[in-house]
C-alpha cells in the first residue's frame, strides 16, 4: 500500500506530508523557546537594580556568529533553489558552505564557553571584588612545598595513589582583571570608573568566595547557558540532518528527485527556525 502525499501535495491543503510534519514540530519548538524567553524576561524584570550584568559577553564574537548564521540561511535556500533548477552539482557546493557555517558557529561558541569557564570573580574578605581571567594558582602540600597550577582546582585537592595520597591546599590565585568596590560596578562597567586591567595575586586567606562564570555563577549566566546551549544542540541536530541529506542520503536524487528536493526544503525550514531563534537571542543576551 502506498502512503499518499509523500511527494505531491494534497489538493485541498497544498502541502505534502513532511511539510505538515515539520510545521507541527516547529510549532512545538516555538513553545519551548517561547517559554525560555518568557523566563528570561521575568528574571530580568524581577532583578534588583544594578544586579543584571551587562557587557559580560564578547559582542564581536556574537556578531561574527550572527553573520555566519545569516549567511548559512542564505546558502541553504540557494542550495534548494539549485535543486529546483535541476543543478545538483551547484547544490552540493552551496550546501557544503552551509555545513561549514554550522561548524564555524559551533567552534566560535565553544571559544565563548571556554572563556566563561576561565573568567573568575573573587570576593575578598575586605568586601572588594576582583573580576577577570584566572592565570594561575599556587597550592601547598603538607610539607609546605609549593605547586603551581594553570587553572583553579578548588580550595584544596588530593592526588596520588591510594594509601599515599597527598593533600594540596590553596595558597594564592592570580587573576588578570580589575578590582571593584561593588557588584554594580562589575555588572555595569560604563556606569563605574574606567577599570585598568592588571594581575592581582590574592592570598587564600583573603578570599571569601571564588567562582567562575559558569551557569552556577548567577541567574544571567544560568539563562545564558540554557538558551544558547539548547540553541547549539539544535544547530548540531540541523547540521547532522543537512549533512546526511547532502552525503549518504543524496542517492535519492537519482531514484526520486522530487522527494529529495522536499527533504532539502524541510531541512531548510528547520535551519531557518534555528537561525530565527538566534536573531532573537543575539540582541537580548549580548546587547540589551
Amino acid at each position, binding site marked *: 500500500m502506498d502512503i499518499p502525499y509523500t511527494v505531491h501535495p494534497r489538493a485541498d491543503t497544498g502541502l505534502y506530508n513532511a511539510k505538515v510534519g515539520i510545521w507541527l514540530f516547529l510549532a512545538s519548538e516555538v513553545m519551548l523557546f517561547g517559554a525560555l524567553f518568557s523566563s528570561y524576561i521575568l528574571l530580568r524584570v524581577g532583578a534588583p537594580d544594578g544586579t543584571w550584568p551587562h557587557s559580560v559577553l564578547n559582542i564581536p564574537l556574537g556578531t561574527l556568529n550572527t553573520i555566519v548564521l545569516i549567511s548559512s*540561511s542564505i546558502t541553504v535556500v540557494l542550495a*534548494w533553489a539549485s535543486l529546483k533548477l535541476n543543478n545538483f552539482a551547484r547544490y552540493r557546493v552551496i550546501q557544503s558552505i552551509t555545513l561549514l557555517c554550522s561548524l564555524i558557529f559551533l567552534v566560535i561558541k565553544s571559544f565563548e564557553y571556554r572563556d566563561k569557564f576561565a573568567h573568575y570573580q573573587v570576593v575578598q574578605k575586605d568586601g572588594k571584588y576582583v573580576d577577570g581571567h584566572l592565570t594561575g594558582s599556587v597550592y601547598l602540600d603538607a610539607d609546605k612545598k609549593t605547586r603551581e597550577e594553570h587553572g583553579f582546582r578548588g580550595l584544596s585537592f588530593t592526588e596520588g595513589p591510594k594509601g599515599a595520597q597527598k593533600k594540596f591546599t590553596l595558597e594564592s590565585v592570580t587573576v588578570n582583571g580589575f578590582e571593584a568596590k561593588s557588584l554594580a560596578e562589575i555588572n555595569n562597567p560604563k556606569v563605574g570608573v574606567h577599570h585598568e586591567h592588571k594581575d592581582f595575586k590574592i592570598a587564600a586567606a583573603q578570599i571569601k568566595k571564588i567562582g567562575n562564570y559558569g551557569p552556577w555563577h548567577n541567574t544571567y549566566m544560568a539563562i545564558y547557558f540554557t538558551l544558547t546551549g539548547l540553541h547549539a544542540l539544535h544547530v548540531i541536530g540541523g547540521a547532522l540532518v543537512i549533512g546526511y541529506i547532502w552525503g549518504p542520503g543524496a542517492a535519492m536524487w537519482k531514484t526520486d528527485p522530487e522527494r529529495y528536493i522536499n527533504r532539502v526544503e524541510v531541512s531548510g*525550514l528547520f535551519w*531557518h527556525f534555528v537561525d530565527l531563534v538566534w536573531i532573537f537571542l*543575539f540582541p537580548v543576551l549580548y546587547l540589551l
Partner: protein
Amino acid sequence: MSLKALHIVFVTASVVLAAVVAFWGFSNYMTPEGTRTDLTYGIASVASGLALLVYGRYFLKKLKKISYL
C-alpha cells in the same frame, strides 16, 4: 508555508536586527563613554541592513515562479 516564504520572513527579521544593532551602536556612541567601535557598529549595521534589502529584492525576483505554500 514554503522555504521561500519563511526565507522572506527571515530576511525581514535580519533587517530589523540590523536596525536594532545600528540603533544600539549609534546610541552608545552618543553617550560620554562612546567609542569609535560603537560608531563602526552603527555604520556597519546600516550597511548590512541595506545589503539584506537588496538581497531580498534579488531573491524575490529570482524565485518568482516558486509557490509561497
